[in-house]
């Protein structure tokens, strides 16, 4: 037998399940610790996606129960639309089976791999089948399945399928047993918290081996689910065009208008004109060469960008701020949602937020929250375009210290939403370096950086002013004392000086040359509206300006003026008398007021 024939005997087809069983790391199952997070992430992503499609406010339960020394049972349950019984085995028991693969719209899961991979790895480590309960409506009973995957064929094997009672009206529950540890519990909680930050319409309850955590909903409106759109002519590849064309039975112009986003009468004609083909040709009759010409023309003709508002669902600046507020208590939060942009024909939107202060660690690297299509990215921070974009910004320009990444009590959130988020690997840990996306991230953060700088500047200036003024006021008495000693005169009162320096309202009262004089100086930055009460034996009838009101109390008179004093202005009143009595000022905080009796 020839060698080639010998070798041929060994050749055989490999199932995709076998492939992924062997290449765990590709899907984020490379360690038992990590597997638990990936599993919950895949299940929760599916739940959120399903609720979104059903326009239901998500109510999700996540459970992790210790079953044995190193075996945990993971449960994720939602109130989504449920899955029809005949589909359940395929959704959970077959890799590369799903509804969103061919749809062009923003969604969390896409490839139909995630959850079935979890089932696959679970059975590999424990041999225990996955349990799925699903109910599609109050009209139907719930179905309970026990499912395994036949790896060598990538097909589901249903061990049990029974109808059961279930208290949820609709929804899905999955239970998987995994050989794992809870070493990454902190990261798991981070994942749930971050998920809650960018899905403020979701309520998530988690029971991690007995400890219960609640992530409350802060927004009672459901998200408008993004709609799938047609492919955009730009960035299309010949192979795709060929396939679409092969399935079409209409003439070229209608084919273009019906099969692609943003192609109308006018640019369809332009495309056909550019390709040199006849409008009447049926798309499916075109040869390879003709398709190439058509494709080239499609690239050259201007076509508006894909309708991002339809297929993408950004979180929105307000919701991001509310999400962050909910989980972190900060001194400052701002968010930006950029306009949609396009890379290789895929629309995307970048959102970002910066927070400062509060309970954030004042030392060390900033807290960085990365999201893609509302899903937190937990691993491979260093390999991610988001991280690299953050590190590429000169944060010092915004008065934030920096060692590669910014440091200090800073929180940075970046969300990339797209019909096709470019990940560096199928484990979806890091966004790949795409110049168009990086540019948007940088612009959003620079914009926010400027806001933060203003905030910090204002805060620092206030603090600094106060400190400086206080320092000056502590030295002035010494100067007054020493100078008086030299000139051998009594030490003068320095409280008016202090008021001036501390930017207060200074009120003085004194008797001079048989007149009672009341002087008010406003050294603050804003106009003040004051009421002045002067209780003294004099009735002040000759006062200038006249009091707004005079009241006789016992043998004294309470004179009242109402005045508004602009910043750095002063006001004074004067009347005949020899006893100034008492002076009382209302209308300004006590700490902003100095009242001085020049006669004491």
């Amino acid at each position, binding site marked *: 037998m020839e060698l080639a024939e010998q070798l041929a005997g060994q050749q055989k087809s490999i199932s995709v399940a076998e492939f992924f069983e062997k290449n765990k790391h590709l899907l984020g199952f490379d360690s038992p610790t990590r597997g638990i997070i990936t599993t919950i992430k895949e299940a929760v992503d599916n739940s959120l996606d399903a609720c979104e499609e059903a326009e239901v406010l998500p109510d999700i339960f996540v459970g992790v129960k210790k079953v044995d020394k190193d075996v945990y049972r993971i449960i994720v349950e939602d109130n989504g639309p449920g899955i029809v019984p005949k589909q359940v085995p395929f959704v959970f028991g077959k890799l590369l089976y799903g509804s969103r693969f061919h749809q062009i719209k923003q969604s969390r899961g896409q490839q139909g791999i995630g959850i079935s991979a979890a089932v696959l790895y679970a059975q590999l480590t424990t041999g225990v089948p996955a349990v799925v309960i699903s109910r599609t409506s109050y009209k139907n009973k719930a179905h309970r399945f026990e499912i395994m995957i036949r790896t060598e064929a990538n097909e589901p094997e249903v061990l049990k399928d029974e109808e059961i009672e279930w208290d949820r009206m609709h929804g899905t529950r999955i239970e998987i047993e995994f050989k794992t540890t809870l070493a990454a519990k902190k990261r798991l909680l981070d994942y749930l918290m971050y998920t809650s930050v960018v899905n403020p319409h979701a309520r998530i309850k988690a029971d991690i081996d007995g400890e219960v955590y609640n992530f409350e909903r802060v927004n009672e409106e459901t998200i408008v689910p993004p709609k799938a759109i047609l492919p955009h002519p730009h960035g299309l590849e010949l192979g795709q065009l060929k396939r679409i064309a092969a399935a079409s039975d209409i003439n070229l112009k209608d084919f273009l208008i019906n099969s692609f986003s943003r192609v109308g009468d006018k640019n369809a004609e332009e495309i056909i004109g550019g390709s040199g083909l006849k409008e009447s040709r049926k798309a499916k009759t075109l040869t390879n060469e003709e398709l190439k010409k058509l494709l080239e023309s499609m690239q050259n003709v201007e076509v508006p960008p894909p309708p991002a508002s339809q297929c993408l669902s950004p979180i929105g600046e307000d919701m991001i701020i509310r999400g962050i507020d909910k989980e972190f208590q900060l001194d400052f939060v701002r968010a930006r949602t950029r306009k949609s942009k396009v890379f290789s024909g895929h629309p995307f939107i970048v959102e970002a937020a910066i927070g400062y202060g509060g309970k954030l660690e004042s030392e060390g690297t900033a807290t960085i929250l990365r999201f893609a299509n509302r899903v937190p990215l937990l691993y491979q921070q260093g390999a991610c375009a988001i991280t690299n974009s953050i590190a590429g910004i000169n944060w010092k320009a915004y008065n934030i210290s920096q060692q590669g990444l910014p440091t200090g009590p800073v929180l940075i959130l970046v969300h990339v939403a797209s019909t096709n988020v470019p990940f560096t690997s199928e484990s979806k840990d890091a966004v790949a370096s795409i110049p168009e996306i990086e540019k948007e991230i940088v612009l959003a953060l620079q914009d926010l950086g400027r806001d933060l700088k203003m905030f910090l500047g204002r805060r620092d200036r206030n603090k600094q002013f106060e400190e400086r003024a206080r320092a000056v006021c502590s*030295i002035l008495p*010494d*100067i007054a004392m*020493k100078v008086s000693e*030299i*000139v051998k005169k009594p030490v003068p009162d320095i409280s008016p*000086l202090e008021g001036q320096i501390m930017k207060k309202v200074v009120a003085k009262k004194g008797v001079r040359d048989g007149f009672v004089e009341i002087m008010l100086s406003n050294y603050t930055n804003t106009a003040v509206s004051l009421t002045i009460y002067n209780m003294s034996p004099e009735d002040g009838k000759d006062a200038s300006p006249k009091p707004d009101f005079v009241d006789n109390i016992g043998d004294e008179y309470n004179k009242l003026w109402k005045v508004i004093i602009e910043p750095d202005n002063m006001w004074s009143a004067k009347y005949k008398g020899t006893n100034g009595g008492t002076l009382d000022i209302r209308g300004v905080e006590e700490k902003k007021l100095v009242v001085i009796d020049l006669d004491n």
Partner: protein
Amino acid sequence: MDKHAVSKLLEIADRWYSQIKRAEIPYISLPTRTKHNIEYDEGTEVWKYGEKETTRTASTAKSALHLLKMAYVVGFLKDQIGENRSSTLREMYYISEGWKRAKFGAQDESNFLVEDLEIITELSREAFHLRPEEDGASIFGPIKIREQTRRGDKDIHCVEDVGEAGYSIPNNVERLTFLENDAKFVIAMETGGMYARLMENGFSEEYDAVLLHLKGQPARSTRRMLKRLNNELGLPVVVFTDGDPWSYRIFASIAYGSIKAAHMSDILVTPGAQFVGVQPSDISMYNLPSDHLTEGDIAALKAELTDPRFDTEYWRNQINLQIKLGLKSEQQAFAARGLDFVTKEYLPARLSEMGII
């Protein structure tokens, strides 16, 4: 004299007192002390501070502290004059130990403050009984001096009555009277090596020259001495330094006044003083051993190009030449051409070219 000084000090305190009484934040105004605010005074032929003023208001902690310290210094000096004592700046610095927060952080600070006081009162520090600590220079030549000392008057001839090191100029030059002299001119030198070389080679005797050792950047007393020799005895003064930017500043401080002491120019500056060398052109003409200019040297030369005191054709040419050469030489570099070269060739040629001999 002492009375005048005390009243000047009281004036300052009085001004602050009434400012505080008027609820005005106390302040003090001074001429701005940078090279951009010195101006040539045609009358006295010296450089003085111009009209730019800096006002120090106690509205920042730094300025307030500055005023407080000044108040303490004013008080201390007033008392010292009253008790007829004197002290050095360094001693005052230590005395400030007892001044609580008005205590000086560093010697520099007390120096600056005293200069401020000199400017405000238009009196020199000696008027406040503040004794400089700097070394006086040495002098050698045919001139007889009477010094009024605590031990009575001493008459000293600066060749006959002194050893090889010459006569040491005291801190307070006002105590000197010039009795008689046979001198034709004064040559002030930066380094001791050159001073000794001229003595050894008999330069003083040969040319009736008064030799003066500046000891680097000259002390106030040295500059005052040169001023008096020039002014009272009519002796031309020439200055012989190393050929580098820092040495030109030595010359400038003698001939034009220094930026730090522009307020004292009238009594410290010798307007007619002339620069002998080492000139940058000497470096190339005599092919002197030289070092490369450092970055600091070049920066100093460039700063001199924008210094109004050096704004003459001579200095512009020399400084630009030096920048082009990239070199500097010391006085003693002339030794490379033999130990006699400087007294037998260079100085005679240069001084006759300058019209001195």
